[in-house]
């Protein structure tokens, strides 16, 4: 018990420290515009990766359509702030909720599908979302939507990222989360233990979509500009690579994966082709030699850091 409390205090202190240090660095201009852009992109990627991990890593539902949920969030937020001049908190809430509603709508019919069929169906749905966005003139069509007001600053993005991680972490460690993990391990066995599979699958999709919607809203109100083709198949793959790289079933793994790949694209931004080749090789090497990802389903924690790498490896192989 005392251990738990100590951990909680340590986590709160760490979060507060991260927030304060970066806020200071931003106000003293040590983190310049370019770095700040990448930092914000990193946080958005963390939200996306962690929320996809809930669907794919913890519940075992292979989704290739996460960018579609993000697109919904981004466009709802952009329309509300740019066209309807509503306050940003309202817009971000609306985009999360509308993405979640689409998540339910996607979740219900695709429940009958599993594995690769589900993957291809979610991919199809996100492509449909993109093609519809391409053909609506009100939101700019193919040329996109520009001059979206920039409301997102460090406090916003930090609060949303930390909030996503904390909520999903607690969800996973509740009885709901254990039900999701049971479905991932063996859905037939889970069903015979009395778990309502349909309910939990939809729940996972809804929560995942909810946070992807938040990520989309942050994206729209930071980058001024949206176009449908930013939310294509490649974006979904991007998010998936982060999750797989960090470890399917590890939240801290997703954070590490998002950080590593955002850094990689920051360093290689002038060489986009080389970046994609590295991406592809990374995927292949991980799948061939370490299919469970960097962290497997272990979490980075204070305990793990103390025990050192050797024991960490032992936990992973379990």
């Amino acid at each position, binding site marked *: 018990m005392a251990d738990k409390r100590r951990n909680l205090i340590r986590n709160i202190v760490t979060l507060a420290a991260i927030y304060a240090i970066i806020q200071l660095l931003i106000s003293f201009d040590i983190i310049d515009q370019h770095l700040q852009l990448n930092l914000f992109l990193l946080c958005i990627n963390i939200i996306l990766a962690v929320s996809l991990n809930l669907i*794919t890593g913890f519940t*075992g539902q*292979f989704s290739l359509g996460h960018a579609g949920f993000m697109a919904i969030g981004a466009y709802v937020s952009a329309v509300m702030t740019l066209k309807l001049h509503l306050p940003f908190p309202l817009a971000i809430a609306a985009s999360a909720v509308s993405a979640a509603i689409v998540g339910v709508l996607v979740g219900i*019919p*695709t429940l*009958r*599908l599993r*594995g*690769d*069929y589900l*993957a*291809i*169906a979610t*991919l*199809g*749905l996100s*492509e*449909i979302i993109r*093609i*519809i966005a*391409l*053909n609506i003139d009100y939101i700019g069509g193919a040329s996109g939507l520009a001059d979206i007001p920039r409301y997102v600053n460090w406090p916003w993005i930090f609060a949303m990222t930390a909030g996503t991680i904390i909520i999903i972490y607690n969800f996973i460690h509740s009885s709901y989360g254990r039900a999701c993990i049971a479905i991932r391990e063996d859905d*037939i066995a889970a069903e015979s233990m009395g778990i309502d599979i349909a309910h939990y699958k939809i729940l996972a999709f809804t929560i995942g979509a909810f946070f992807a919607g938040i990520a989309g809203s942050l994206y729209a109100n930071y980058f001024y500009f949206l176009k449908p083709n930013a939310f294509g*198949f490649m974006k979904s*793959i991007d998010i*998936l690579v982060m999750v*797989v790289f960090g470890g*399917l079933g590890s939240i801290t793994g997703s954070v590490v994966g998002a950080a590593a790949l955002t850094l990689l694209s920051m360093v290689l931004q002038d060489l986009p*082709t*080389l970046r*994609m*080749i590295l*991406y*592809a*090789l*990374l*995927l*292949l090497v991980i*799948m*061939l030699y370490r*299919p469970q990802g960097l962290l497997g389903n272990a979490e980075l924690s204070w305990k793990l850091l103390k025990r050192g790498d050797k024991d960490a490896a032992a936990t992973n192989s379990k």
Partner: protein
Amino acid sequence: MAVLLQQLLNGISLGSIYALLALGYTMVYGIINLINFAHGDVYMIGAYIGFIATALLGLGFIPALLLSMAISALLGMAIEKVAYRPLRNSSRIALLITAIGMSLLLEYTTMYIAGPDTRSFPTVLTNRQYSFMSGQVNISSMQLYILVISIMLMILLQFIVQRTKIGKAMRAVSMDKDAAQLMGINVDTTISATFAIGSALAGAAGILVGIYYNSIDPLMGITPGLKAFIAAVFGGIGSIPGAMVGGLLLGMIETLVSGYLNSNYRDAVAFVILIIILLIKPSGLLGKNTGEKV
């Protein structure tokens, strides 16, 4: 009436390309239960080989077609050996992610080597227009080539699968891998052969499309690849006649939608069909319904 006929003709030529590609998907899926995402990129490589053969080596159409089929077949076998074989006993998600990785690798390596620009094919075939119904319906010789070559390849495939030893082995392995092994069938060779045949068909589709649309680029395989997979699901995945029917139907529906409704929604049609078919009849038009095994 003439417009409808013209649309159907265009749809059939587009559809036979989809069918050629869908055959590769369906064969691979039937034998190792994998959506081979890299298949669309084998088609792209096939188009590039065709380009090299005709523009740089100055070969004629038929030698270029054969060369591109042969190299695509080798590429397919290499992909299977390097990426899929080591993972044969791991989870399906791992296999699918490997396939996506392989697809990205092929796309961007080609882009790195050949550059991202669209290239145009040299004219290797004299293109003639044949008109019917007082000029209202046109069919080009290129469309005829596509049709004839696709039909010939499909007949050849049916012959291989139904009448030869390796075809029998392929059918046996797709039915039950372990039992086939017990009967003395070399499963590895059979899977390799499946990839070779499927990839050769994709290579043929690639060069046909390259000549028909006269432009190729490193990312040309993504959309046709996805659509051909949808065609395979539409017809019933694992079924060879299903892939042909699915491909032709998808091609026709697509041209009809872009002709009569709105061409902007052309790409969405395939995905809508996919979702409808998955919800109503997941086993596809000609597929067999298999129960769930515990």
